[in-house]
């Protein structure tokens, strides 16, 4: 399946990398795709490195192994760069998307010789600016969609708005902040 996009998420237990992978699956599902979202569980300790995965395709994917050669890698916590070879196996033409206030050029020396595309997104700043608290998943999700183009932008934003209006039916005031997070992350992603 040439049209299949494979994504690997790196985060720390409790930061929501698994949730981010589920949100991406939701977005792709709403766009009519076949999706897989699955976590890789080790010892479930808050703060320990965890991995989650997505496959997104036009037809159902029957493979149920982990992903070793992803198209894209999303890193929710940049401190993982010290201990995890996050860029391992990234396909040619792919990219790594890192949650950081630094530029791609500043981070590249930490990427163990990886020569492919590096993107950064300051999810903390965008989240604090729009939601008043640190929820990295929403900006990360938008950055991954913007870089991978696994879902068409306008459809993604329209579907997410519908989803937020349903999910936050009793808290409509948070809908706009989340939507701004998505839009601003899509335009502010570097690299």
């Amino acid at each position: 399946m040439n049209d299949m996009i494979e994504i690997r998420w790196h985060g720390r237990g409790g930061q929501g990398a698994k949730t981010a992978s589920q949100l991406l699956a939701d977005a792709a599902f709403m766009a009519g795709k076949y999706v897989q979202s699955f976590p890789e569980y080790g010892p479930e300790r808050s703060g320990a490195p965890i991995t989650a995965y997505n496959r997104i395709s036009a037809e159902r994917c029957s493979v149920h192994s982990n992903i070793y050669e992803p198209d894209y890698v999303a890193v929710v916590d940049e401190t993982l760069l010290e201990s995890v070879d996050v860029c391992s196996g990234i396909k040619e033409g792919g990219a790594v998307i890192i949650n950081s206030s630094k530029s791609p050029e500043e981070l590249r020396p930490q990427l163990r010789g990886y020569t492919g595309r590096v993107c950064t997104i300051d999810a903390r700043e965008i989240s604090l600016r729009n939601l008043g608290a640190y929820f990295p998943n929403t900006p990360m999700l938008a950055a991954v969609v913007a870089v991978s183009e696994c879902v068409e932008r306008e459809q993604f934003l329209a579907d997410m708005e519908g989803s937020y209006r349903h999910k936050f039916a009793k808290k409509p005031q948070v809908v706009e902040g989340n939507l701004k997070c998505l839009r601003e992350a899509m335009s502010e992603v570097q690299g």
Partner: protein
Amino acid sequence: MSIRERLSGNEAIATAMRQVNPDVFAMFPITPSTEIPQYYAQYVADGRVDTEFITVESEHSSLSACLGAEAAGARAVTATSSAGLSYMNEVLYVAGSLRLPVVMAVACRALTGPININHDYSDSMAERDSGFIQIYAENNQEAYDNFLQAHRIAEHPDVRLPLMVCEDGFITSHAIENIELEEDDAVKAFVGEYHPEHYLLKKENPLAVGPYGVSGYYMEARVAQAQAMKNAKAVILDVAADFEKTFGRKYGFFEAYKMEDAEVAMLIMGSCAGTARAAVDELRSKGVKAGVIKLRVFRPFPGEELAAVLSHCKAVAVMDKSEGFSACGGPLFAETAGALFNSKERPLMIDVVFGLGGRDFTVTAAKSVFDRLVWIAENGVVDELYTHMGQRE
């Protein structure tokens, strides 16, 4: 009309349970099956079901509570994994011998030790002789569909046996994938209501449940139970045929993929079957006549049917995702070899124990097994009968 959704295996099974709306759900939590009662508790709280939801202090008790309910003529379900299933061991045999058709979801997980929460079939294979029917799923869709068929198989008057609907822990239970759900009313019409002929509280026909079986009676009871397991084969196929007519998805004892002219084949269960099919597609494009059989029904074991489809192959790998410590192969291998023993034609066969405790099984790994089979087929000799794969040396 089917409903397009995306759910984890656990939520798919919980949804099937909600649609069946059984009389009793007795639960004790254990990873990775815990979400099933967790979702169900929400359905109870939201008033979407009128099930008696009983929280008990152990798995031994959860299955015992189900047996009490079933003996009283009610429809009862539970869910468990790993050590929880082991802790039910005594009660599993009671369920089978009392002929009480409790339906249980098992999110299969390794047994200790070392302690491990990930997938293999150590737990369900250890209970293969308990008298439960065992049906395995490749993904969330099959877990859901198998659950919709479960009660009709288990409760059939020719069968009346308990049944496990097995999904792969985490790989299926916690993976979100697309799924086609059926409408509540259509499911209820398909599953039907449960009106057993005999039950404890039927005043016109009082019944003793669980009496002592002296030597003069015990064997007759066991033979009747063995006959019920044989009878289950026809019922499983009948229910699958009606399921296909009603909902359009086809099921049997196993799914044969590109087996018509296969020279080398793999017999495998659960989520790894899809990975093996991807390997077959790659090998077929290079001219290798490879095929896969995904075993869905392990109990009753479809020995004759498997022998018929495997006998023409040159070399077959049986993939055991549990280690039985027999020192001569895993449980799936032993049964498959036994099934083929009296065939006039039969392939050379190897057992590969793999994937223990969640060790990943990749397309590359599947291809390496087929490479071995091609060598065996060409040389007409088995290199090594019983091996392990994927471990560090």
